[in-house]
């Protein structure tokens, strides 16, 4: 059984069908990419699967369990993590705290224990601090361990979101344009990072406009156009699909 199964998924915004009757499935352990022109519905698809939006119709199953319309904080419990195309970093926190936030569910969040600085809680938090620092190193942010999030450059913030998502200890990780706005060198580094994450056993679902990266890294690719599924298959298959070439690659290349 696939880890993620989506069928007949739709989302309407007023009259606009942002996602229309989309079906696909993602096997555990793969890198699965979603591509398509601007406004094709990729982010909306992510928002539907991660609980940010409620579908207008259709079905989403994680490991066989129906999760359409389940709130994001509950999906985090089930091992779903994500990053955002438009950065969502807590600028009032330090970089390290942003990563620690990712492990929110692994900690004792009791208000009273926090108030009285319960020893067990303080110890667990100190241990998490080390793990978060380790994750920052993993994504290449060692230099920013003592930084405030608000003092970091854009490229570093993109990685910070990835570190935070990894702190969730996800089974499936949704990355919405992790290389957007980055220079070629940074893009190559993100490419390597995504590969490293996938190799660690986390299933990665990726939205990305950088075709070189997508073609290199993906086990399978879903092509969306105007909210509809245009094609699906391996990088080879998708690259040769005439409809895809016409609608998307033709324009880009």
């Amino acid at each position, binding site marked *: 059984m696939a880890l993620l199964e989506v069928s007949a998924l739709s989302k309407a915004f007023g009259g606009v069908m942002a996602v229309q009757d989309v079906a696909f499935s993602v096997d555990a352990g793969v890198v699965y990419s979603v591509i398509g022109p601007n406004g094709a519905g990729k982010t909306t698809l992510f928002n539907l699967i991660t609980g940010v939006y409620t579908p207008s119709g259709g079905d989403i199953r994680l490991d066989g369990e129906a999760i359409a319309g389940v709130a994001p904080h509950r999906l985090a419990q089930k091992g779903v993590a994500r990053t955002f195309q438009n950065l969502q970093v*807590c600028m009032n926190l330090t970089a390290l705290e942003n990563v620690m936030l990712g492990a929110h569910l692994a*900690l004792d969040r009791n208000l009273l224990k926090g108030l009285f600085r319960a020893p067990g809680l303080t110890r667990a938090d100190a241990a998490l601090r080390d793990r978060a620092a380790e994750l920052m190193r993993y994504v290449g942010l060692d230099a920013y361990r003592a930084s405030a999030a608000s003092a970091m450059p854009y490229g570093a913030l993109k990685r910070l979101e990835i570190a935070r998502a990894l702190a969730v200890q996800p089974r499936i990780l949704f990355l919405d344009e992790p290389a957007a706005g980055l220079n070629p060198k940074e893009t190559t580094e993100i490419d390597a990072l995504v590969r490293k994450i996938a190799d660690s056993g986390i299933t990665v679902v990726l939205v990305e406009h950088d075709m070189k990266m997508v073609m290199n890294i993906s086990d399978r690719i879903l092509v969306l156009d105007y909210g509809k599924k245009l094609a699906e298959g391996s990088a080879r298959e998708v690259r040769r699909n005439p409809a895809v070439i016409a609608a998307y690659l033709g324009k880009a290349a």
Partner: protein
Amino acid sequence: MKRQRGLFVLAAVLLLLPLALPNAFYYDIVIRMMINAVVVLGLNLLMGFAGQISLGHAGFFGIGAYAAAILPTRYGWHPLAAMLGGALLTAALAALVARPIFRLRGHYLAMATLGLGIIIAIVLKNEGAYTGGPDGMAVPALGLFGFALDGEKQWYWVFAANLLFSVWACRNLVDSPFGRALRALHGSEIAAQVVGVDVARYKAAIFVFSAFFASIMGSLSADYVGFVTPNVADFFHSIELVTMVVVGGMASIFGSVVGAVLLTALPQALATLEGWETVTFGAILMLFMIFLPRGLVPTLAARCWRSR
């Protein structure tokens, strides 16, 4: 311990301050500063750290104050039991309204909490049979372990210990996983959600907690003054509290203390201006907001940091 440096400084100031207080009048002012400081601390958790707002906090303070008056007088409760009872009642009320209220944001949330505060104030004023109406009512003295607390000098130590504990506890909370989630939902609600923070629950929890805080302080302050009037639950008192948070500095623990001290002292200092005190008070607030929009403590802290 660097972490606790501020706390030590505060403790030292509180210990030494009585040496500088010439008479009961000054004790009284300092006690009021401390009462306000603790309420403002709780409110700052909600406003500064969680990024929400309450324009009705004086209502919660008022429930605590009247619980301290009504429960011992009419039902024979021990004042401490009355304090706890009032705080639990306040917490229950806050929890009841929290879910619907925190669906709202920004101005709408402000209006809803404003309405809640006004309703509480009106009930306290109108239920004359219980509350003594607009004239208020006397509060029986608070005894602790057989000692009757009376006189400003004894109360000073009660409130000093209370303030010190509250500062310590609030700093702990802000640094805890709960506090981190709270600050995170202020920074980005959606980011907090997708890592597992039940945003609605956290907002409700901190609202209830800060209401509880306000109610306890309402009771203590009523016990100290020995009398309550509906003014304690007034809209203007709510505004005063919010102003203290903002002037001292949002999301600043010591800012809360500084804001409470300044805005409690200011009207006293301006009292000599005869008729112009309100105008001057307003003007000073406006200047504060124009030149120190982030509040006193955060702005000054940032300046010191840069000049190093």
